[in-house]
């Protein structure tokens, strides 16, 4: 990753943290708020493939962990898994279809919000299951699906061209999002 792309990633993550820590925390429906930090690894996986999805998922998760009262490193772990999973599972798909980013954001966000409390429980935090998980999955998934298209474009702008070596990519790759 070149310094220019590293700077772009930092700017993107900073904007996401600011958006999450200000506007989105006040948007509460049934006590649940949207989570745009979940969208970054999903968008990175979609725009840059599994390796960049995992990398962005790890670092954005680590940044998110700085502001969360949950175990330190948990968001980084889930972000890594989701970023990689999205990148690997969509590698062979035609990424130019308009409905792919919203659909992947919906499913990826839902997977993130389900894996988060489950892994938290494994790490000795069973109270993380005592929350309205269905509400969280639906709200975060739907909001991220709405924001998916612009998020993928921003992340594609920030990330360097992904390597497609060894991956069953479609004819339209990351460059299609730029």
């Amino acid at each position: 990753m070149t310094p220019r792309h590293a700077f772009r990633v930092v700017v993107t993550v900073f904007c996401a943290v600011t958006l999450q820590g200000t506007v989105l925390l006040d948007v509460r429906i049934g006590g649940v708020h949207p989570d745009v930090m979940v969208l970054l690894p999903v968008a990175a996986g979609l725009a840059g493939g599994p390796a960049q999805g995992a990398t962005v998922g790890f670092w954005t998760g680590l940044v998110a962990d700085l502001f969360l009262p949950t175990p330190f490193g948990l968001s980084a772990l889930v972000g890594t898994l989701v970023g990689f999973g999205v990148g690997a599972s969509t590698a062979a798909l035609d990424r130019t279809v308009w409905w792919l980013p919203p659909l992947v954001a919906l499913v990826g966000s839902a997977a993130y919000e389900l894996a988060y409390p489950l892994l938290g429980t494994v790490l000795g935090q069973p109270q993380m299951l005592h929350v309205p998980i269905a509400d969280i999955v639906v709200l975060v998934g739907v909001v991220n699906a709405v924001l998916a298209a612009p998020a993928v474009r921003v992340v594609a702008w920030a990330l360097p061209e992904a390597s497609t070596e060894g991956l069953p990519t479609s004819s339209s790759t990351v460059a299609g999002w730029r």
Partner: protein
Amino acid sequence: MVASIAIITLDARGGFHRIASGLRSTSAGAFAPVRSVVNGIVEPIGSFLAGAVHYGAVRQENAKLRAELGALELRNAEGSDAAQALAQLKALSALDKLPYYANLTLEPAEVVNYGPSNFAATVTISVGRDEGATLGMPVVGEGGLVGSIVQANHNSAVVRLVTDGRSTVGVRYGPSPGSLAVVNGHGSGHPLSASLVPNDAPLKAGEVMTTSGLQGAIYPPGIPVAKVVSIRTGTSSSQESVALAPLADLARLRYVDVVLWGPPS
């Protein structure tokens, strides 16, 4: 993935926990001005949009409040006794509802942020280490106990609410000297529960449980915690199943007080 697991393990084992707390504290301090600036820009716009969207409801509420104000003014005018008016004002004051204030040193704080995580019931307040707030200090609001500080930054602190799944409060109830129990949180939106309440406990719906203040307890005695909502006796259980509602209005917290108190060593 290995790096994530390593961080989690180190944090859980304690060695890295102090570093993680320091990083979190520094991040909170660094992000506070950004949040303040952005909120300063966004909040007026949000209020304008909310006002525009809910214009009809706001007008109706305004009319209702005007009618209530008129009725209250009429009632005040009818009351000839100044002491009666004073008593009414005192009743309106939150301080009047908190008798335990007398013996405790309090630091007022504003709730600046509601829980950043959907998986933990916490709030961020505007008072931190610089104002004397430290880890574990109780936080009270109008009505009763709000929670305790789990992260103290320079100028802010994170408060774990009594409804959080990790919250446990030792309480006392019933006639003096009172029976003991433990109130547990089960997440936002879920009622609290009381454990260690025997079947023959002198407990009834509406009864208020207060902090026990036993030796080594993390809360001083006498702070109202929650009100009993329902009691169910199981056929085979030796304990009552007690559901409670927190006395403090945790959904609408705006201002709270940090109790500058620590358990006696």
